[in-house]
């Protein structure tokens, strides 16, 4: 069970949230080549260790925010704003 530090509502149980994944920048769709588009669509860092990710507070403030999480231990700390 994770305690997610919502910057607006304070720490809450992870069941109130939806995991929204690693943030990525969309390439220019008019110029992008297939390998780059594939990378944007499908490839993730999938790192074992500290990652920066987005969560969405579904049953709360209904806002997206950044969280840092260690994917090996599931330790969580507030993420710096994007």
């Amino acid at each position, binding site marked *: *069970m*994770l305690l997610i530090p919502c910057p607006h509502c304070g720490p809450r149980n*992870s*069941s109130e949230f*939806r*995991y929204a994944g690693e943030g990525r920048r969309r390439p220019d769709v008019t110029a992008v080549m*297939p*390998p780059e588009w*594939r*990378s944007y*669509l*499908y*490839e*993730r860092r*999938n790192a*074992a260790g500290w990652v920066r990710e987005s969560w969405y507070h579904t049953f709360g403030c209904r806002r997206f925010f950044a969280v840092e999480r260690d*994917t*090996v*231990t*599931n330790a969580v700390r507030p993420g710096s704003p994007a």
Partner: protein
Amino acid sequence: MTARKPARYSAFDLVRRGLTRRDWPRSWREHDLNSSYDVVVIGAGVHGLACAYYLAANHGITNVAVLDKGYLGGGGSGRNTAIIRSNYLTPEGVAFYDRSVKLYENLAAELNFNVMFEQRGHLTLAHNDSSLRTMRWRAEVNKLQGVNSEVIGPADIKRLVPYMDVSPESRYPILGALYHPPGGTIRHDAVNWGYARAADVLGVQIHQNTEVLGIDVVGDRVTGVRTNRGAVAAPIVVNCTAGWASLVSALAGVTLPITTYPLQAAVTEPVKTFLRTVVVSGTLHVYVSQTDRGELVFGASVDPYPSYSMRGSLEFTEELAGHVLELMPGIASLRVLRQWAGLCDMTPDYSPIMGVTPVDGFLLDVGWGTYGFKAGPVSGETMAELVATGKTPELIASFDLARFADGRLVGEKGAAAVGH
């Protein structure tokens, strides 16, 4: 590599050793790590061991090392819920998993190891019109491929599983099910040990506690691996890992479209046999089967966020218990004995990634999501063929890494997401 004469397991041998009190020989040997092999397989789970076994048995390639950072069968191969089936959705998937079921049917005889494969039948429940539609679709795809699957109604389900609540008053009424008689359960440890023992007999070396720390690539060719026990040269390296597949591939500079999620399972105290069939419900995110010992094995869908942690959670147990009781209210007083998690390498289309990579000699048998164990034998067989002949077998051609760039995804979510 030296082959050796195996101890033949038989009822006669059991009696003889019982009377003479002679010890059984070790099932596989330990070796010093050589400085080079013809083939290095990373991961001593069912995929890696089967690949090594078929390399030796089908192609006579025995100078093979199987490396594992932990113990044999300690990853997904020892953590899955041991369900075997071939009732998939895509023609590519059905043909592939059907070959695996065929290999499993003959595996105990081939390996001289009782893998306890029981084809008890497999039920995937439909609780709404859209899943009933998917079940009909799967049944038709299956029949065209010669796989025994059909859609049955609540009365037939009740006959197969008398303890199931099929009344229209339940919270998620059961409208029908995809019934797949060849599906069933197996003893997963026996499969791992059987392949390991048979590969060892043929001269394959199995190295446990041997972690691959680096993969050497010169130009665009793989030349070997570096481990915690020293460097090993090899012209072919096969990545058969699960959970760490993307990290191991990254050592060779190959990026994979994989995200790793834990999947939790649990087992109850043993009771007298009352559930023969494997029962799966996608809507309720649960699957149930009863082992030969009488324990009920429960599995769920993957956790809601990616992680490499293999700890269980209370939320999982609560949700799982609630869902199982929707199906079978009569088992409410059963106690859960233990729970665990395994790591699942999820791909965007719920199909595996098999075959060649941009790095010559570095081959993939990864991305096994939540459906890896049932594919062990056929993956080993086809990967061994790829290594030996240099040509990608037809059966796995559509699972190549290049499909993601080319837009040739093999969408298997409708049959792989929760149905195990």
